[in-house]
Structure formats: structure tokens, C-alpha cells
């Protein structure tokens, strides 16, 4: 079956769709704020007239390449291409500023490829086990995982832990605007009809990251890179191969987060970054262009985006909004995912899996060919780059809903994002709160319903309690450490001879 699947996927027409999907995905991914959701949704209608196998192969290529392309904007202009690339900015952009954009692109290209392959192996080999783990998680556990992801992001932001958690809470509040997920009642709209659908995520992200970055660059002459060089892509490849422990850690994070429905993409990159920082002997180098700080989120993101397909294929439950579109595409083409996906569809599932693997290879080859060219964006004078960022932000805000009011939202959050960046507030916490809001609230209410209104359900289930204890310990640890250090210092001062 596998041989048959690969032979079908390698037919010339399918390969042509693969290359086309990768090229389109890379371009869409490189645009600030436009991620896999936009790419796959936009390309879905194009597959209407196709046979099932080429259609899914084409969408797989768009899916994988958009996730990879997302990192371009993160590295070049400090703007996440999508929510999955937030952590890639933290060390990718400092590298670009130091004249190492090509080096960063090399890390991103090979890291994304390795992550994609790790995700694919898990998809093929570990699906049943991972799905079993995911099914053990109830609403209380999902609530705690989301809480943990928010806290981890705040911790990753360095000295502003409280501010990070505060911004996460503000992000959650912003996500409450619109319809309540349980009662469907419109709330916090303040009389604006526009707010009944909630705040548009893309417009908020574009404002907070892209427009704020444009405002920052407006005051800086020259170009992003302080040097007239972008470094070598192949040096980034070699650097990746020197970090096997990072590869393993980030792959595991990406795969595990990918299996958890709805949490994956937005959290995987942040969690992987944080774990890598904790594992490092020199955590102080993170945020200043540390290769591991870029490699870990890149691997986790791509492993997660393929791992995200596991519940989609095996249970017929989409793990995210992107995989929901994937699921719709499969059903549209007569493929029924779920428990009988493998037993009733002949060689088609194997063709789809082969297509997903080939999609990773396809974007990797394209990355090899074009990464250095993309990296040269950091040499463009800011006076030309800033208007480009502004125009792309505005048009990307419009692209999803064609509503000009979304641009107003982008502009407002642009100013907020600028002030946050200037005072080093971790704006990413606000975005993660906004992304996870619906999920957190829905699971909070579900858990309370299961627990018959008692909050004890969050603390009596072993997994939920463990996750809660871990979160509290991680948030409290920096403060406890500080108190210990101060008491030791005070003790040594008292013990020192006076005079």
C-alpha cells in the first residue's frame, strides 16, 4: 500500500501541484499576519475540480509551506507571519539585525524541514498512542494546559512576568467580545454591531506586531540590518546539525502539542522556546540572537502543524481551524477520515501521507533556492520597507473579511503595540490570550458542568492538578529564587567583618 501511495503521489501532475502549492504557500506565509489558515482557506475552492489525491496533496503543500513561510516575516521584520511564529521573532530578528539574516533563514529552513519530518513520522507511527493520550484529557485538563501556556509565555518574556500574565488576561478579555461560546449571547459589544463577531485576530496581530514595528522603524534611519551582509544560509544548516538535543526536545514538544486539539500551533513554539531556554547553560543569550532560540520554535511549529493532522485523520476531529478546513476538503472529495479511514479507502490514505511527506521536501528545496533572496529584505532602506509593511498590514487585514473597519482595529492595536514594544511589554502574551480565550472559557464552563458547579474539579483530577502545580511552581520559582538569593546575600553581609 505504501509503495502504491508513493507511486501515485510521485505522478507528474501531483508533483506539479506540489510545487505550485509550495510556491503559493511560501508567498502567503511570508506576508505578515497571513498564516496557514488563510492559505488553505483561500486555496480550497481551487481544488473543487481536482481528483481527491491531487487536491489533498496540493492543500498539504500549501499548509506546510505557509507554516514555513510564516517565519520569514518573524525573522526579517520582527512580525510573526502567524500565531505559530511568535517565538521565532525573539532570536530570529536580533540575528537579522546583526547581519545574519541568511544564517537565521538557514536555521529556519532546516529546522522547519526536520520538524515537518518529525511530525510526519509521528503521524504515521504514533497516531493511535498519541490519540489515546489526547482522549485522556478532559475540559479541566485543557483549561489547565491553556493556563500553563499563558504562564509559560509570560515567563519566557524575562523580567516582566507579572506584566506578561496581566497582558494574557487582557487578551482573554478581548476574546470575550462577541458571542459567549456557551449561551451564544452577545456581550461586551458596547453598542457596536461590528463587535458582535468578536475582534478579528489577524487585524489585532497585524497591528500589535507589524504596524508597531513599522512605527519603531520609522524613527530609525538606514536598514534593519546594521551590516551590509546577510550571512550564509549553509552556516545555519551546520549550526542546526550541531544541536541534536534541541532537535529532539523541540520535536517532542511540537508533536505532543499538535495532538492536543486547538492548543497546538499557538502554544507549541512558545513552550519549545521556554523549555530550550530552561535547558540552556546560558539562558542570558536568549533574545539576543541565540540559534537554539530560533531552532526550537521552528521545529516545534512544523512538527505541531503535521501532528495537528493526527486527530483529524484518526478521529475525524479537527485539531485546529486549519485542519477543520482540511477535514472539509477531505469530505468534499469523498474521503471519510476517522476510525475506518485506513480500512475502507484503499491506497488513498497512503497517497495522502506520501503527499504530506513530499510537501515537506518540496518547501525545503524551495527554501534552499530562495532563502538567501528573502533574507536580503533586511538590506532594504527603512524608508522603503516601512511603507511596504504598512500597506501589507492594511491589505492583509482586509483580505480575510473584506471589511475596512478591520483596518481601524489594526491601526488602534498598532499604537498599543508600539507603546508595548517601546517599554518592552510582551505583546505576545496578549495575542495568546486572545487566541486561547474561547477554548479556555468553553472548557472552564464544561469542567464546571461536569463538576456540578464545584471548582474542586480542577484540583481533584490527577492530570489537572499536576498541570496546575507545575504552572504555579514555574511562575513562583523566579520570585522564590530571588528571595533565596537576597537572604543568602544578606547573610553573607552580616557574616563579613565590619569596617
Amino acid at each position, binding site marked *: 500500500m505504501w509503495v502504491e501511495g508513493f507511486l501515485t503521489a510521485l505522478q507528474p501532475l501531483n508533483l506539479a501541484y506540489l510545487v505550485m502549492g509550495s510556491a503559493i504557500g511560501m508567498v502567503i506565509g511570508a506576508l505578515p499576519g497571513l498564516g496557514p489558515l488563510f492559505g488553505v482557506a*483561500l486555496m480550497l475552492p481551487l481544488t473543487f475540480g481536482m481528483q481527491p489525491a491531487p487536491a489533498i496533496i496540493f492543500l498539504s503543500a500549501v499548509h506546510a509551506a505557509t507554516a514555513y513561510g510564516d517565519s520569514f516575516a518573524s525573522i526579517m521584520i520582527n512580525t510573526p507571519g502567524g500565531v505559530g511564529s511568535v517565538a521565532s521573532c525573539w532570536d530570529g530578528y536580533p540575528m537579522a539585525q546583526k547581519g545574519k539574516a541568511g544564517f537565521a533563514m538557514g536555521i529556519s529552513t532546516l529546522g522547519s524541514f526536520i520538524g515537518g519530518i518529525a511530525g510526519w513520522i509521528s503521524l504515521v507511527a504514533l497516531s493511535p498512542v498519541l490519540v489515546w493520550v489526547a482522549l485522556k484529557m478532559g475540559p479541566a485538563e485543557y483549561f489547565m494546559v491553556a493556563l500553563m501556556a499563558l504562564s509559560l509565555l509570560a515567563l519566557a518574556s524575562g523580567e516582566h512576568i*507579572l*506584566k506578561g*500574565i*496581566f*497582558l494574557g*488576561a*487582557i487578551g*482573554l*478579555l478581548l476574546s*470575550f467580545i462577541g458571542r*459567549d461560546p*456557551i*449561551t451564544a*449571547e452577545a*456581550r*461586551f459589544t*458596547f453598542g457596536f454591531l461590528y463587535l458582535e463577531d468578536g475582534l478579528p485576530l489577524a487585524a489585532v496581530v497585524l497591528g500589535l506586531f507589524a*504596524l508597531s514595528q*513599522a*512605527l*519603531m522603524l*520609522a*524613527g*530609525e*534611519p538606514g536598514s534593519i540590518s546594521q551590516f551590509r551582509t546577510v550571512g550564509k544560509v549553509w552556516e545555519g544548516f551546520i549550526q542546526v546539525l550541531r544541536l541534536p538535543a534541541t532537535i529532539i526536545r523541540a520535536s517532542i514538544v511540537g508533536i505532543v502539542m499538535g495532538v492536543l486539539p486547538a492548543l497546538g500551533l499557538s502554544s507549541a513554539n512558545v513552550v519549545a522556546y521556554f523549555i530550550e531556554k530552561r535547558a540552556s547553560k546560558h539562558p542570558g543569550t536568549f533574545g539576543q540572537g541565540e540559534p537554539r532560540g530560533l531552532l526550537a520554535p521552528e521545529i516545534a511549529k512544523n512538527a505541531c502543524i503535521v501532528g495537528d493532522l493526527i486527530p483529524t485523520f484518526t478521529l475525524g476531529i479537527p485539531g485546529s481551524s486549519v485542519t477543520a478546513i482540511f477535514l472539509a476538503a477531505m469530505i468534499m472529495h469523498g474521503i471519510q477520515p476517522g476510525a475506518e479511514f485506513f480500512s475502507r479507502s484503499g491506497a488513498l490514505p497512503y497517497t495522502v501521507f506520501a503527499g504530506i511527506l513530499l510537501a515537506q521536501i518540496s518547501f525545503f528545496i524551495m527554501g534552499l533556492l530562495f532563502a538567501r533572496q528573502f533574507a536580503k529584505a533586511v538590506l532594504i*532602506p*527603512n*524608508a*522603503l520597507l*516601512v*511603507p*511596504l509593511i*504598512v*500597506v501589507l498590514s*492594511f*491589505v492583509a487585514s*482586509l*483580505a480575510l473579511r*473584506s471589511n*475596512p473597519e478591520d*483596518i*481601524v482595529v489594526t*491601526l488602534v492595536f*498598532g*499604537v*498599543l503595540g*508600539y*507603546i*508595548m514594544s*517601546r*517599554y*518592552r*511589554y510582551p505583546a505576545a502574551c496578549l495575542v495568546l490570550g486572545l487566541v486561547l480565550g474561547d477554548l*479556555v*472559557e468553553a472548557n*472552564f*464552563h464544561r469542567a464546571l458542568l461536569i463538576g456540578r458547579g464545584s471548582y474542586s474539579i480542577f484540583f481533584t483530577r490527577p492530570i489537572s492538578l499536576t498541570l496546575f502545580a507545575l504552572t504555579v511552581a514555574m511562575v513562583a520559582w523566579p520570585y522564590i529564587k530571588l528571595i533565596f538569593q537576597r537572604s543568602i546575600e544578606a547573610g553573607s553581609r552580616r557574616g563579613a567583618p565590619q569596617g
Partner: protein
Amino acid sequence: LLESLLLIVLGGFALLFFISSKDSNPTAALFPRLVSAAALLLLACDLFLGGVKSGKPPVAKEEPETHPQSSAWLPAMGLQTGYLIFIYLIGFIPATFLFLLAAPWQMRYRRRPIIALHAILLTLAIFASFQWLFNVRLPKGFVGFPW
């Protein structure tokens, strides 16, 4: 001043949510009320700890040194607001073209042929890719020009 303004806006926002949650039914209001209360508490803790650390009132903090032209964002912001107004007035494509001509000039870039070429090529690329290829409905503005 800017940081204080940010904290006032965000704190005020959390307070507004806390008060507005009384208008919703108990199920829809429960979680927002908890989160807004937690947000206000976190803000208070942060301000208190900030005040304790510096030994001064917690509001005023010195500005980071990383931005050589810290006021340059205001004219840039003004131009972006103007761009938005022009989108509503004359439509996305002509407003984009005008913005692409004006923005580099405002940033003291004076190579006119490059500015013109940049504006023309980028406007055409946006028009071709988003209007034709992606079929995005770009605003035509109140004037309603046929582009």
C-alpha cells in the same frame, strides 16, 4: 507618560469589563468577571512591586534608550491615519499609491525615481495579487472610482 497612559487604558479596559459583566447573564458573565478581577489584581501587584523596587511612586519610569528618534512615530502615525481616511474617501488602490509616494519622503528619503518606481510597482503588485488572484474586495471609497 506613554507607559502610564498604556496602563491606564488597559486597567480601565479591565475595569470596564468588570462593570459591564453585570449586564450579561450569570453564565456568560462568570469567566469574564473572574478574569477582569484577576487582571486588576495583577496590575495592582505590578504597580506595587514596581514602586517597591524603585522606592519611588510607581507611575513614572525612565524611557528605554534604544530609540534614537523617540518622537518620530507621531508623524508616521499621522500619515497612517491619513492613509486610512483616504482609503475611505478615494478607495484602497489610489490611497495606497499616494501613501507609497508620501511615506518615504516623510522619512527623509529623497531619491525621487526610486520612490516613484517603488510606489508604482507595489501598487500594481497589490492590485494584481489581491484583487485579481486572491479575489479580495478592496474598498472603492465614497468617491467610487472604478478601480
